[in-house]
């Protein structure tokens, strides 16, 4: 087990290396650079801008820039943000925590909805309960998240004014107080719920279909032939087997939420990684862009590993040696 994890971590090194080259080249391939925005500034001297470019090494060939960047990145130094003028890691850190909290709360909401609804729908398949849940699922599949999030924002953030419509915390409360935590959570609920209500539908359908599949398995009939009461047939035999793929997906889900919160963070002006990423791209803040992509890539690799570990923990047929 430990050997397996170590081996997987070692394999990540070439994967990350390859990723870094691609990311770096693509970032460089974007038209313009961090100083392009200044060119329209009448007070900026073009000669001065060129001098700064030279000084920052932006005129060097890409591989020289890459080697310089990579050798620093290996030591955990992703450089200084061109726009924020502070080390990239500092810029990212606050945003990262915001995104992680959002992802966790979203995940909790997603499973809180998916598990009971999936079980109901699967156990009582083809009844009106199942048809209602399935109807909701198809509605969820068909609704674009950016439209749904806007509606949620309008209804609960603006019209009813139950939740704040932007930011990650109220600026008036002091850090470290209880009110601060409450305010943080309050800001999380609306974006998390909007994502969960849409994202949960695939998990619901997945769980439903697993239950329907498992219901007619031979081992379920065996359990009944032993005189096991129906409720136990479900909890010990059908549900445990149905949760396997859901558990295995958990690893991917986590990374998916960290990397994919761009839309929701932008709509709710929630200061997370996704929003930072988008603004950094438009400001050509290469150091931040590359750092975020590298981190998401790393998280994805960790997520796959996590999925493998979870699956081997819950399914005795899969043992990692």
């Amino acid at each position, binding site marked *: 087990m430990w050997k397996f994890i170590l081996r997987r971590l070692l394999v990540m090194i070439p994967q990350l290396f390859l990723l870094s080259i691609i990311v770096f080249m693509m970032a460089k391939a974007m038209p313009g650079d961090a100083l392009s925005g200044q060119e329209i500034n009448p007070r900026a001297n073009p000669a001065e801008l060129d001098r700064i470019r030279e000084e920052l090494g932006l005129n060097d060939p890409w591989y020289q820039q890459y080697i310089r960047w990579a050798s620093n990145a290996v030591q955990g130094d992703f450089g200084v943000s061109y726009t924020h003028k502070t080390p990239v890691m500092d810029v990212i850190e606050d945003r990262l925590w915001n995104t992680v909290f959002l992802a966790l709360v979203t995940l909790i909401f997603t499973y809180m909805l998916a598990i009971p609804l999936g079980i109901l729908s699967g156990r009582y398949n083809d009844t009106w309960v199942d048809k209602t849940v399935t109807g909701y699922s198809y509605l969820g599949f068909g609704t674009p998240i950016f439209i749904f999030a806007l509606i949620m924002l309008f209804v609960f953030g603006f019209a009813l004014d139950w939740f704040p419509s932007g930011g990650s915390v109220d600026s008036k409360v002091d850090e470290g107080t209880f009110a601060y935590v409450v305010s943080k959570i309050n800001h999380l609920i609306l974006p998390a719920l909007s994502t969960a209500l849409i994202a949960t539908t695939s998990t619901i359908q997945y769980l439903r279909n697993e239950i329907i599949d498992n219901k007619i398995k031979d081992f379920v009939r065996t359990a009944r032939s*032993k005189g096991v009461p129906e409720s136990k047939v479900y909890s010990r035999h059908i549900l445990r087997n149905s949760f396997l793929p859901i558990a295995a997906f958990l690893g991917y889900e986590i990374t998916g939420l960290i990397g994919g919160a761009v839309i929701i963070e932008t709509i709710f002006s929630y200061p997370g990684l996704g929003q930072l990423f988008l603004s950094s791209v438009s400001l050509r803040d290469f150091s931040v862009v590359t750092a975020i992509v590298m981190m998401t890539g790393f998280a994805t690799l960790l997520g796959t590993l996590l999925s493998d570990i979870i699956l081997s923990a819950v399914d005795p047929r899969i043992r990692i040696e």
Partner: protein
Amino acid sequence: MKKAILQIENLTTSFRIGNKYHAAVDDVSFTVNENEIVAVVGESGCGKSALALSIMQLHNKQRTKSEGNINYKGQNLLKLNDVQMNKVRGKELGMIFQEPLTALNPLMTIGKQIEENLDYHTELSSAEKKNRTIELLTQVGIPYPERTYKQYPHELSGGMRQRAMISIAIACNPALVIADEPTTALDVTIQAQILDLLKDIQSRTKMGIILITHDLSVVAEVADRIVVMYAGQVVETGSVKEIFNNPLHPYTRSLLNSIPSAANEKNRLHVIEGIVPSIAKMDRIGCRFQDRIPWIPKHAHEETPRLHEVGNGHFVRCTCYKAFYFQAEGDASAHDITKIR
């Protein structure tokens, strides 16, 4: 006189297809006595498994209805509700399924799956349950019971899995075990071992066994009585000796004729033309086998075929057996006739 364990009287089990119910088990009656193995024989689709699941009440209730009587210890099993039936299943009636890999839960250890049976039917402590489980595993001839107790189904061979399955069925010393094709998924050498094991357990516990199979060599080896089923009906029943020495019904004779043996190795193996009619399309009037023996004149069949006693507890359905003959020399000609038709 042997003591009867289970009496099945006029059992009819129907499946709903669309809005109509179609009988897969049609007016079946027979009795299983203590210390007796009754073999239920027939092709695929004859209603053997449907019969087994009806006795255990394991059919989907929304799509199935069973009528008649299944008398066990003075009560009609068909009249029991789920809670009452759960006290019978596993405790009084055990069941062995065909494919032991899929019939065992892949996520539970063998030990836990056997213990589950004890959980609901005994008051044993967990240590006692474990002891009993190890004892059961030893009884069914598993070489390292302590190790197997902790193993998962995929870690065992097919034969070992079927032994574990048997120990689940006999965990609570049931009076009757229903074995639904217990050897079909196993290779021949293992088949013989499993049959010996069943026979051995039976002789020790005096339980009754309903052995469902399409393999007549299995029947010859272990059974006491045979019930031949065709298209949901019993077409012939009697002791093994009677049926093998004096088979009467055309279906039984055809089945026996289809077994390869030293005597018929020179000829082409007998083939019963056609297939068992599907329950939705079956003609329920007249002899159900007549379409598969078209060379027998129609008037040889009874209009409403009944079971006729021919002595010695030997019953046969329809009168067509009196007129039945195999078509001339081997079955090559039989093939030709159907081609012309």
